[in-house]
């Protein structure tokens, strides 16, 4: 290594170090390092407070139900721990939080209230749907229903449609904290409380976005099996046979409902 290159390398190292030192001081609050580097502790404290405030604000926007459920000291603690566990890495606070639902399961509060993780996952899906791509059904693809056999018909769902399996009343918990109608919120809260103290069974929750505002519902028996089958890539025929024994399920009704809810992007034909 010649002297000039060595010198440049040393300068780069120094540059890396001063940036890394500042990050370490802010994120790890190494008081000794701060003092040794002669950095103003008041400044570091401002950056630390900004970081925590920005992170809390971001999570409270992306996870509004979770933040309604947690006391402010708990949410602050969880935010702080989550920052260390999963630092933001995309330059957009709105995209930070994918791992929060699984992180919650590792916390005391997550053990104490096991439904919190599923509430968090639901918030994340709703948040993503809110900013998701704007899609509506490609009307022309409906013609495939008349032209093709169900064995060859598959459905491409709107990217904002997601299914979430849970044994907790997370839809009621969600609506207990959203919407302007106070009576509806109260009723949702009462329903949630009743379900939480009774025997809980698995159910499928669907997130969808008819226009700009995402909505969540618990799918009825039959509808849940049918949707899961279609979304896992099964053909229309295979999905219909999965609900064959269910007399309450009607494909015609489902289709009208799916179009109204903007669930479908397009039908596609695939020769098997």
């Amino acid at each position, binding site marked *: 290594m010649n002297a000039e290159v060595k010198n440049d390398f040393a300068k780069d190292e120094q*540059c890396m170090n001063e*940036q*890394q030192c500042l990050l370490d001081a802010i994120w790890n609050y190494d008081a000794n390092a701060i003092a040794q580097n002669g950095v*103003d502790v008041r400044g570091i404290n401002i950056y630390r407070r900004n970081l925590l405030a920005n992170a809390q604000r971001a999570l409270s926007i992306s996870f509004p139900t979770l933040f309604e459920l947690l006391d402010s000291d708990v949410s602050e603690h969880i935010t702080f721990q989550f920052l260390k566990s999963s*630092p*933001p890495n995309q330059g*957009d606070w*709105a995209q930070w939080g994918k791992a929060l639902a699984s992180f919650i399961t590792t916390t005391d509060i997550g053990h104490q209230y096991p439904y919190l993780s599923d509430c968090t996952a639901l918030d994340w899906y709703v948040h993503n749907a809110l*900013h998701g791509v704007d899609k509506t059904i490609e009307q022309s693809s409906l013609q495939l229903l008349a032209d093709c056999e169900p064995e060859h018909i598959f459905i491409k769902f709107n990217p904002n449609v997601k299914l979430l399996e849970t044994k907790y009343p997370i839809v009621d918990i969600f609506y207990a904290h959203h919407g302007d109608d106070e009576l509806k919120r109260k009723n949702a809260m009462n329903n949630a409380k009743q379900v939480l103290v009774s025997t809980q069974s698995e159910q499928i929750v669907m997130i969808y976005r008819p226009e700009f505002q995402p909505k969540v519902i618990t799918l009825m028996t039959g509808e849940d099996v049918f949707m899961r089958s279609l979304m896992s890539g099964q053909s229309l025929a295979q999905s219909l046979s999965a609900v064959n024994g269910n007399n309450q399920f009607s494909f015609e009704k489902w289709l009208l409902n799916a179009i109204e809810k903007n669930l479908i992007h397009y039908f596609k034909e695939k020769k098997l």
Partner: protein
Amino acid sequence: MLVDNKALLVGVGLRHPHFTDILTKPKQVDFVEVHSENFFGQGGAALSVLQQVREKYPVSLHSTSMGLGSIHDIPMGYLERLKKLTQTIDPFLMSEHACFTWGKQYGQSMHSGDLLPIAHTHVNLARMCEQVDKVQSFLGRQLIIENVSAYVKFDESYLSEAEFLAELCQRTGAKILLDINNIAVNSLNFEGGNIQQSVADYIKILPLKSVEQIHLAGFQIPSDGQLVIDDHAQPVSDEVWQGYRLAIERFGAVPTLIEWDSHLPHWSVLVNEALKAREIAQAILHRSKS
């Protein structure tokens, strides 16, 4: 010396609570500025509103996360989202800050979540020129680089921030977004607090045609012994208005924006701040012409 090089435009930073106001109230400002990252989603209501706003107003895209001074590279995913937004909105200005944001913690790549200051050295200047060149090429747009407020200073700095930015612009063809409030905050925190003098010292270093936009904002007066925080939660202070006068006298009619990010006021209060900027600038420009 006055350079009356373009029409005087005044604008406001547009934040979510004012979406309805901007679309329904009579047009009183010339442009709006939004934070790019707030519209990185692929769709949804916010992006739709911005597209409607764009039909009525020129839009300036102000990024806050690019971290042009970072020793680590800007992730391509970030730049691709910014490029997509740029193509959708076709902004009349695109700006970022002279700071760093990317680094590593706990063995993972991370974003600092804040505008962190850089040491003003030739090494950092070369690094930032490299990043600015790369971003300008990728976006096919000129960038405008903003001076930042800081709460720590690096002993390693041997250039002033103004010298650093002037050189950056000369080497890359980028321009400067002069934030008078940031100069004021740094003046109070590190330079004894003579804001007028700090602004005068700063702007005399910048080439006459280098400033493409001016930001004005307010800050909170701290309790004794504490640093001033650049919170954008107040009306523009008298000292910053004074600094603005100096800047207009030197740089002429530069598009001027009022930033207000916390404790947002009523729309009319925000607009009145922009109208005040127009009034001040026009008086100076008129006096200069006559």
